[in-house]
């Protein structure tokens, strides 16, 4: 009789790795998305060029290859990252590149009249972004950000490549040791599904909260 409790424990350990990767990766992705998204709208050509290069590069190459480079090639230039750091960095930058387009699109979809009202009221560029444009653009970004976070969650499985024991990695170990495929993979199927559901519910709730005033309900 297989001692499933111990094996499930292994998978739970992996689930924590997956969860940390997802959370930290999303944090990096969010920062990267805003930096690059705002960068693409900058008045300075150099800043725009840098942002475009980042976005195109990370969207145009696979996450698998990026991970390989960061983990195995960067050390040749004396930059070594732990597997976890490398995973977070690559996942974050990769998803951030997609997020940058979302940030840019949402900002551009705020009506030009809102910019003009800000000029007439003599706001600085920063004040305009911070108090008027971003608060209106954010609700437009959130649904796609939610999808991106779920994409990131699913992409975490590639980190087993650099010997990080995430959930998928652990399931494979359990499968190898027990000869049973059904139990470990059903377990992680359910766990992935729970995590993605939690992400999309959380984003949905946040979206509801920040758009409350906009559809005419008293704030």
């Amino acid at each position, binding site marked *: 009789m297989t001692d499933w409790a111990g094996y499930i424990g292994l998978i739970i350990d992996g689930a924590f790795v997956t969860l940390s990767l997802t959370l930290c990766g999303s944090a990096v992705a969010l920062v990267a998305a805003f930096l690059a998204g705002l960068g693409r709208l900058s008045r300075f050509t150099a800043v725009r060029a840098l942002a475009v290069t980042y976005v195109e590069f990370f969207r145009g190459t696979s996450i698998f290859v990026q991970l390989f480079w960061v983990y195995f090639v960067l050390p040749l230039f004396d930059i070594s990252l732990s597997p976890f750091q490398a995973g977070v960095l690559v996942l974050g930058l990769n998803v951030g590149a997609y997020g940058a387009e979302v940030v840019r699109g949402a900002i551009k979809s705020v009506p030009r009249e*809102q910019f*003009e009202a800000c*000029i007439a*009221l*003599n*706001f*600085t560029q920063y*004040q305009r972004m911070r108090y008027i444009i971003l608060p209106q653009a954010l609700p437009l970004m959130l649904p796609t950000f939610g999808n991106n976070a779920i994409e990131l969650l699913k992409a975490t499985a590639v980190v087993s490549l650099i010997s990080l024991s995430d959930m998928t990695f652990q399931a494979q170990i359990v499968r190898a040791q027990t000869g049973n495929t059904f139990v470990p993979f059903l377990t992680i199927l359910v766990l992935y599904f729970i995590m993605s559901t939690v992400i999309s519910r959380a984003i949905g709730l946040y979206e509801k909260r920040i758009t409350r005033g906009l*559809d005419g309900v008293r704030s």
Partner: protein
Amino acid sequence: MNKPIIRLDKIVKAYGTHTVLDGLSMDVKAGEKIALIGPSGSGKTTILRILMTLESISGGTIEVDGDYLYHMKDASGALVPANEAHMHRMREKIGMVFQHFNLFPHKNVLDNVTLAPILTKGVARAEAEKRAMELLEMVGLADKARHMPAQLSGGQKQRVAIARALALSPKIMLFDEVTSALDPELVEEVLNVMRRLGEETDMTMLLVTHEMGFAHDFADRVLFFDRGRIVEEGPPDAIFRNPKEERTQNFLRKIIAAGHRV
């Protein structure tokens, strides 16, 4: 002594090859109430947008309250294009109310009015709110302070927009067809606010309008524009009752035919 508060000198404005203003010069005295009238496309909005720094100019100079708007003097005294800091200082003198209100939809009425004084003038919140409530009182909307813009009618939105612009106490106010996006029954409530402003303040006001009756009562001076030029100007009675230029006469005839009161 009595220098004009606004002086446009040979202003040129072109969009690509299309020249909208071709060397327009005009003066506005402090406290003057000016109505700009004229056919569609004659450049009325363009003039207000240029004064609000929402457009750039292709040539000429503008002085506002003794300073250049789009230029500044460098160390040798030569005129050079103004930097953002200079424009920022100049914009303090000017406020604008738009045809489509352009309220901030995510802020309630009170925040719409207080945000600019708090951010751009460093006014304390309590003080900004006190002043905002006075202004909302003046435009008859004190009871709507906590409403969101989406909950207001067009006329109410426009009155909030007027209060919002007034909250910065500009010396010059620009109004671009502020009633033409409104349902007919809501026009009067906005015009009443404007009328009071005209009577009770010494602000300089430039108003683009198709409401000829209102322009007649409100303005000290009426400028009739056509194709980017001032065709005729003078006191309202002279322009509306006794226009000299044929183009002015034709324009007014068409407006009256379209059912506007003069």
